[in-house]
């Protein structure tokens, strides 16, 4: 079968992006969940933080370009640097 990605030298990457509130920001929803877990008897639970998980497939020239694009996407839209941190990982498809 004709493989277009070989012709244009591009590659698809399965990307997983994790966005969390910065430690200095109070996560009120996390506190509520922590209370719920304590009520269920999980007394050992602490520091519950709720974040966002985003999956996307990215076509890029190579891993270096994918990395740069994902950083840009996170800084421009996916995370708000005033309140959130992000990290991501990606694997070739």
């Amino acid at each position, binding site marked *: 079968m004709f493989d277009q990605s070989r012709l244009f030298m591009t590659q698809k990457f399965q990307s997983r992006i994790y966005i969390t509130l910065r430690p*200095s920001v109070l996560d009120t929803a996390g506190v509520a969940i922590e209370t719920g877990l304590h009520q269920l008897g999980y007394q050992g639970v602490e520091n519950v933080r709720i974040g966002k998980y985003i999956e996307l497939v990215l076509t890029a020239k190579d891993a270096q370009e994918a990395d740069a694009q994902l950083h840009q996407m996170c800084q421009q839209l996916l995370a708000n640097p005033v*309140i959130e941190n992000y990290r991501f990982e990606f694997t070739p498809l």
Partner: protein
Amino acid sequence: MKFGVVIFPGSNCDRDVSMVTRGILGQPTRMVWHQDTDIDDLDVIILPGGFSYGDYLRCGAVARFSPVMRSIVQHVAAGKYVLGICNGFQILTEAGLLPGALIRNRDLHFICDQVYVRVEHNQSLWTKHYQPHQVICLPIAHGEGNYYADEDTLKKLEDNGQILFRYCSENGDISPQYNPNGSCHNIAGIINERGNVLGMMPHPERASDVLLGFTDGKALFEALIS
């Protein structure tokens, strides 16, 4: 003064705003669709409340990339005026036109209420018709109105007199129990350093018509045209 009221998909206070600027104050007012980019004829742009783009990802995060926002950045750079109310305030912080961010309310509830707000000073275009520390009553309706900024930013806001409105008691007490949503320093509204951009969570446009029972917000709009 010519007013422009921006309509994003999901805005729901746009007509309330134009009812005040055009209907009550008799000022020329144009509705601006979020795809429009030609806003040179406008003196004051108002970003109304609502749930632009469904508030997906974060409130205001997607609206910030609307074509009209590029023109609004130029409008601000030219020293013209922008008022963001509620969702409009959230959009202005996402766009970097105002510092900080608006996060989930402290108690996680959507709050629909009338609250007391203290006008911090009247040395701005927006508050010149109020008395310093005057207590006014305005409606709020938000789930993400908890103003957050780091300590350095808060200090700058305080030192520069950029905080125009704070949540308070009927007597102007700004103790924590009179803070409905957990905002840092009880902040309800701030301006940028230049003073031409105001963002606020309370709704002055819903308190400008005697038919609605209270009119404490009207002086803000009147100050713009005087």
